[in-house]
C-alpha cells in the first residue's frame, strides 16, 4: 500500500501574525490586566502567517457554540471538497474510485458528519464506507493514515481517502484569557488536507514511471497510548464551545516518550534511527519541535518542512502533518528505497508513528 497523493486547501483570508495579534489585543484589551501579553506570546509561537475562515473583523460577531459550529459545518464542507479535489486530481482519480473515507477533525462537530455531506456533493459511490473521527486532535493526521492503511491492507484492490479539516480560529474563546487560550490563539490555524491511500493491488500502487511523483509505501504503523495523561491536552466543552486544555508539559512528554517509541518501532522493523532519511513530523509548535529534535538527536534542518509549515500556516491540528507530507511529497520526495517516519502526538496523550519507504 502506498500514499498516492496529498492535497491541501486553505481559506482565503490570510493574515500576518502581527495582524492577528493586533486584532485580538483590540478585542480583549479590556478583559486583561496586561494586554501586551498577547503579542509577547504570539511572537514566540513560530508562526508568521495564518489563513482564517473569516475576515478578522467577523469573529467578534460569532458568539455561542451553535452559530460558531454552524459556521464550521459550512466552511468545513467547502474546504474539504477543495482538498479532496486537489488530492484526487493529482493522480487522475475521481470520487467514484474511493471505497472508504476517513474524516478527522476536532474543531467542530456534525451529524450527519462532514464526509456524509461531501458524499452528497461529490460523486462518491453510495457503497462508500465512512469512518468519522472526532477527538484525536493533532494526532489524527498520522492516526488517520494508519487507520486508512489498515483498511487497504484488508482490501488491497481499493482506495481509501483520509480528509482532515481543522478550523481552529472558530474555537477562539472571548471568555478565556488564560495563557493556554492565548497560546492556542497564537499557534493554531485553519486548513484542510486530503490523502489518497492506495491498496497494494491498485493501479496506482503498481504504477512506475520515470516522471511520476511516486508516494511512499506504508510499511508499518504504531500507536502508543500514554496512560493517565488526560490533563496534557484536549478540550473542556461548555456552552461557549471548545475551551483549550494545553499543558506546558507537552515538550516534557515528548522528551520522556518519543525516542523510546521510535526506537522500539524501528527495531521491530529491523531498522534504527540511522536508517531514516527524512522526518515528516506534526508542526506542534516551537517547543514541541525542539523537543523532537533534541530527544531524537536529529541533524540540523531535519524538521525544516515542519518548521516551514508552522511559519506559513500555523499548527493545523490533525491537518498539519498532512500539509508537511504534501510539501515533502511534492518538493522533496525521498530517493527510492529510503525510509521516512511520519509522526504526530495528540490528546490522550498519545503518539502515532508511520514508517514509510520511498
Amino acid at each position, binding site marked *: 500500500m502506498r500514499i498516492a497523493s496529498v492535497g491541501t486547501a486553505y481559506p482565503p483570508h490570510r493574515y500576518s501574525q502581527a495582524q492577528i495579534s493586533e486584532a485580538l489585543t483590540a478585542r480583549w484589551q479590556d478583559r486583561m490586566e496586561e494586554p501586551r*501579553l498577547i503579542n*509577547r506570546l*504570539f511572537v*514566540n509561537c513560530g508562526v508568521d502567517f495564518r489563513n482564517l475562515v473569516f475576515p478578522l473583523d467577523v469573529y467578534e460577531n460569532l458568539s455561542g457554540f451553535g452559530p460558531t459550529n454552524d459556521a464550521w459545518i459550512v466552511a468545513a464542507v467547502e474546504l474539504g471538497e477543495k482538498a479532496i479535489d486537489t488530492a484526487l486530481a493529482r493522480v487522475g482519480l475521481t470520487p467514484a474510485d474511493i471505497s472508504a473515507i476517513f474524516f478527522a477533525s476536532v474543531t467542530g462537530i456534525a451529524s450527519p458528519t462532514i464526509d456524509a455531506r461531501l458524499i452528497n456533493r461529490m460523486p462518491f459511490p453510495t457503497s462508500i464506507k465512512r469512518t468519522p473521527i472526532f477527538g484525536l486532535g493533532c494526532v489524527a493526521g498520522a492516526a488517520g493514515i494508519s487507520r486508512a492503511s489498515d483498511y487497504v491492507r484488508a482490501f488491497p484492490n481499493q482506495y481509501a481517502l483520509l480528509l482532515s479539516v481543522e478550523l481552529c480560529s472558530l474555537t477562539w474563546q472571548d471568555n478565556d484569557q488564560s495563557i493556554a487560550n492565548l497560546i492556542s490563539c497564537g499557534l493554531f490555524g485553519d486548513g484542510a488536507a486530503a490523502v489518497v491511500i492506495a491498496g497494494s493491488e491498485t493501479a496506482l500502487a503498481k504504477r512506475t514511471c520515470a516522471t511520476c511523483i511516486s508516494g511512499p509505501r506504508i510499511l508499518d504503523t504504531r500507536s502508543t497510548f500514554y496512560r493517565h495523561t488526560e490533563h496534557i491536552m484536549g478540550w473542556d466543552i461548555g456552552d461557549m464551545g471548545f475551551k483549550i486544555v494545553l499543558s*506546558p508539559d507537552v515538550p516534557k512528554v515528548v522528551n520522556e516518550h518519543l525516542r523510546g517509541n521510535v526506537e522500539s518501532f524501528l527495531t521491530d522493523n529491523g531498522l534504527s534511527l540511522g536508517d531514516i532519511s527524512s522526518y515528516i513530523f506534526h508542526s506542534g509548535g516551537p517547543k514541541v519541535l525542539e523537543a523532537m529534535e533534541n530527544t531524537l538527536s536529529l541533524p540540523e534542518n531535519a524538521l525544516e518542512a515542519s518548521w516551514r509549515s508552522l511559519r506559513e500556516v500555523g499548527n493545523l491540528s490533525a491537518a498539519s502533518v498532512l500539509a508537511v507530507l504534501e510539501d515533502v511529497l511534492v518538493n522533496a520526495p525521498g530517493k527510492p528505497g529510503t525510509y521516512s517516519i511520519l509522526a504526530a502526538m495528540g490528546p490522550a496523550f498519545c503518539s502515532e508513528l508511520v514508517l514509510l519507504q520511498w
Partner: protein
Amino acid sequence: MNDIATRCIDIIAKSKSIPADTISLASTFDELNIDSLDKINISFEVEEAFNIEIPDEALSTLRTVGDMVEGVTKLTATTPSTITTH
C-alpha cells in the same frame, strides 16, 4: 556589578523565588529553569522597574541574564530621563 545588573537579578530572583546570589550574568535562563512564559512575566517587571518598553521580539533572543542586562542598559540609555530609581 552595576546597579542595572543588580536590580535585574533581584527581579529574576524574586520572580522565581531563588536566592539572588545564585544568579550571575553568565547564568542562562535554561539553567535557572526560566521558560518563555517566565521570561515574559519578568520582562513586564523589568519594564516597570526601569520605565522602558522591551520590544516583543527581543525576548526570544535572550539566552543569559547578561543578555537581559545588556538590553536593559541600551534601552535605558535611549530614554535616560525616564529612568526610575525606586
